[in-house]
């Protein structure tokens, strides 16, 4: 396997233009002869399917939800970055690029990040033209806010539901193409394997989740925009259905999986309330603009009503340790600091599994400074959501928050064209590893999804099709039949385990806890080795005892779950192996062995300035590492400091 980033050379601001000019174009009359499979209909997949349909390609789109509008991009609250500099506060494409490379802790590819920053301005134009109701000022122009520690106000937003509004824009554009007949949309359809013919991705195998039918679909290329793998932890802010199956099946068919250990833990989520907890709810990071984070200074105060704890007995630990950034330090720093406080016995809220895992996020000062009305205007819907879930009123008592798995920077390795190591197999959005390095900045996920979907994939996929040409494949091809058989065999194995006695969720919870404890916010070699030993055993138990009542011939949500957990059980091990291999701390990957005197992440640029791309060898416990060395011409690696 060879990793060739295929990035253009020359001045960085000209690279994408140059690359586009060098592309081969498909004659307009020929476009309809080409078909493209698009898996996932979130921001990346929905936008790409709509845009490619519009260009005249024949698109076959797939999603597991009942409607394309429900992909999990919908849940993003905070906003989307763009280097518009509408606020006249010194922003520019270069600054957004610089911030993103630095935020990724110098583990991303400069050319990709620069392109992302360039595209950001087009995204806002595109979405506004679609009718996305971004927040506006009284003068009628677009409003911005500062977000996630950025020193400029470059974040566009639509109340607390930016993700939904952007997704509806893409979904509506997609609906228009469905009506026009350029896109065949298959909902409640899950992709379960990739079909590779002569080394090239030519199709997928799916299961119709309503009828249970296993089917093959063929095309000239396949694009995966199937999101991240944060649900490996069982508890995460992802939707319950989010899974790694599409990306993992691609990996097992030859696509390298890059940096799986880069997982972002979001600092502001509602804490776990009990053993029955099924997911964690994110509270927008924008809350940290006005909320102050604290824990009691004394362990005996942790069960007290917070209102009765004197100011002098509170530790505003972020403001104390990071005076320049205070409560707005990057996500990984805020998360680890919360974990340390709770590990030190200063956590608040209910005790679950022997520990109180929560810190206060307090709005008292902001309310007395700005008034309850102003705070309600900014965060009203978030406060309501918090109250619905916890029963506490955050206008009166501080919120309790705790970090939760939120986003995965790792994903399928892709080149500058967003193509994986399998020719004809592309990956966009969170499913790829490309733009965020070791950590993602707030309000950058929506930007990347839409950049890939609207502005990158339609070009790079077109270029691929123009260069490879069209060749018919029959449903009867032996590789097609083999892929369908693989899926059918696996379904049967899930339904007929030798000693059925454990549910998919029970395995998922056990795996999730194992990965959270050993490959979560804080990692060390001993723990990772322990997890690497345990996960294969758990996998064995799974295939021996998995219990899936019902049949594969109709709607069976337990069967769907079991298949996804089986893939998480494989990915979880690779995550730990990657985390063990990366013997440094960087971004969201914190190895306890490598920290500064102040407990900050300490990179090792000499040995680890590379993207780790893992190849599946047929043995899950012996993946092969390939390194893409990263070079920094425009942003010189420096130690992050948020003091």
């Amino acid at each position, binding site marked *: 396997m060879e990793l060739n980033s295929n990035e253009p050379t020359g001045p960085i601001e000209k690279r994408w233009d140059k690359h586009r000019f060098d592309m081969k174009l498909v004659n307009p009359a020929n476009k309809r002869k080409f078909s493209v499979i698009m898996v996932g209909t979130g921001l990346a997949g929905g936008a790409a399917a709509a845009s490619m349909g*519009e260009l005249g390609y024949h698109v076959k789109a797939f999603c597991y*939800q*009942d*409607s394309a*509008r*429900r992909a999990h991009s*919908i*849940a993003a609250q905070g906003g989307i970055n763009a280097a*518009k500099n509408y606020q006249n506060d010194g922003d520019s494409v270069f600054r957004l690029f610089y911030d993103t490379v630095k935020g990724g802790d110098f583990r991303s590819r400069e050319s990709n990040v620069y392109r992302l920053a360039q595209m950001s301005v087009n995204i806002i*134009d*595109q*979405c*506004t*033209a*679609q*009718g996305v*109701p971004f927040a*506006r*000022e*009284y003068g009628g122009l677009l409003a911005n806010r500062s977000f996630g520690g950025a020193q400029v106000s470059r974040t566009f937003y*639509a*109340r607390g*539901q930016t*993700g*939904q509004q952007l997704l509806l824009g893409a979904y*509506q*554009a997609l*609906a*228009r193409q469905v*009506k026009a007949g350029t896109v065949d949309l298959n*909902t409640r359809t899950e992709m379960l394997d990739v079909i590779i013919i002569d080394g090239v991705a030519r199709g997928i195998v799916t299961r119709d989740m*309503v009828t249970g039918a296993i089917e093959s679909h063929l095309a000239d290329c396949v694009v995966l925009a199937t999101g991240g793998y944060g649900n490996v932890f069982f508890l995460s802010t992802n*939707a*319950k*259905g989010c899974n790694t199956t599409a990306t993992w099946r691609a990996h097992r068919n030859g696509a390298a999986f890059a940096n799986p250990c880069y997982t972002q833990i979001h600092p502001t989520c509602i804490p776990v*309330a*009990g053993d*029955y*907890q*099924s*997911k964690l709810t*994110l509270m927008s990071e924008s809350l940290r603009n006005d909320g102050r984070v604290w824990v009691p200074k004394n362990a005996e105060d942790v069960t007290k009503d917070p209102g009765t704890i004197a100011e002098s007995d509170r530790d505003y630990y972020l403001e104390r340790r990071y005076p320049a950034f205070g409560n707005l330090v990057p996500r990984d720093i805020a998360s680890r600091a919360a974990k340390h406080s709770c590990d030190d016995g200063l956590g608040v809220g*209910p005790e679950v599994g022997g520990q109180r895992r929560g810190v206060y996020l307090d709005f008292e000062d902001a309310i007395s400074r700005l008034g309850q009305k102003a705070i309600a205007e900014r965060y009203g819907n978030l406060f*309501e959501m918090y109250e*619905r*879930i916890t*029963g506490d009123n955050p206008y009166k008592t501080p919120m309790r928050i705790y970090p939760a798995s939120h986003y995965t920077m790792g994903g399928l390795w892709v080149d500058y064209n967003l193509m994986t190591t399998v020719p004809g197999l592309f990956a966009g959005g969170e499913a790829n590893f490309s733009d965020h390095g070791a950590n993602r900045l707030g309000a950058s996920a929506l930007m990347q999804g839409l950049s890939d979907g*609207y*502005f990158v994939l*339609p070009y790079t996929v077109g270029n691929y099709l123009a260069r490879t040409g069209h060749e018919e494949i029959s449903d009867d091809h032996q590789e097609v039949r083999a892929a369908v058989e693989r899926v059918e065999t696996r379904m049967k194995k899930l339904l007929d385990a030798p000693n*059925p006695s454990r*549910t998919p*969720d*029970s395995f998922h919870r056990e795996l999730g806890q194992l990965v959270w404890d050993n490959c979560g916010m804080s990692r060390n070699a001993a723990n990772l080795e322990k997890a690497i030993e345990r996960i294969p055993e758990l996998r064995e138990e799974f295939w021996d005892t998995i219990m899936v*009542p019902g049949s594969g011939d*109709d*709607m*069976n*949500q*337990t069967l769907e779950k079991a298949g996804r957990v089986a893939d998480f059980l494989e990915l979880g091990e690779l995550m730990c192996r990657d985390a063990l291999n990366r013997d440094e701390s960087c971004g969201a990957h914190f190895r306890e062995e490598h920290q500064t005197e102040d407990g900050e992440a300490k990179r090792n640029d000499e040995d680890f300035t590379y993207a780790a791309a893992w190849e599946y060898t047929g043995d899950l416990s012996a993946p092969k590492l390939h390194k893409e060395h990263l070079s920094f011409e425009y942003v010189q690696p420096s130690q992050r400091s948020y003091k």
Partner: protein
Amino acid sequence: MSTIDLKLHIWRQKGPSDEGRYVEYAVPGVSVHMSFLEMLDVLNEGLLEKGEEAVTFDHDCREGICGACSMVINGVPHGPQKLTTTCQLHMRQFENGPFELWVEPFRATAFPVEKDLMVDRTAFDRIIESGGYVSIRTGSATDANETPIRKQDSDLAMDAAACIGCAACVAACPNASASLFTAAKISHLALLPQGQPERYDRVRKMVAQMDAEGFGGCTNHEECEAACPKGISVSNIARMNRDMLRAMLTAEDTVNVPGGE
């Protein structure tokens, strides 16, 4: 921790052609801090451990935004708490009863039951496909700040755009009308300058599709607004009706293409 003991009557239906029936389940010791769906998870884990099939229901984000969850609890879509989807409904709402609950799918002719509590809502997608968009090509947009929009108009458009497409409005309506859903999208786009060029064409097409899907008509019960987890106002239906009236009074645009058909 306070807990409650529940008796549930859950609609079980094997598929679209099965008749369906309520099946009784006891769920003891439910923590009031659980969400309604977590309570169903607990029920399902228990069923699986006995080797029985779990209750099928739609759910995904579990944070009130994807619009997947779709069940009627004691006659009310999404249950008793105002402005709350089923996934965000917490059991503390039932701390003082009722402890006996009937749970059934969203019912409408246009939404066939797929299994148990899961229905087919693709009719909503087809309504959007008929015209619920602005026809602009990727890459053809002008600068986003070129067209200022009054904040009041933008806010009203946002109010309408907040619809999550869950279909509680249809389930709540005695006529199973989809007027609130359709009107929300029509209003969202009609209130913005970007939506003007296709405004009357859009309302014509979307209303026609809504009717073709077999939804009932609106007779102003306003149950939809009461059930809507996002508080979408029925004034959007009035706006849709005004636009529809105007569309009906004006001739459909015909384009003369020289040399064309």
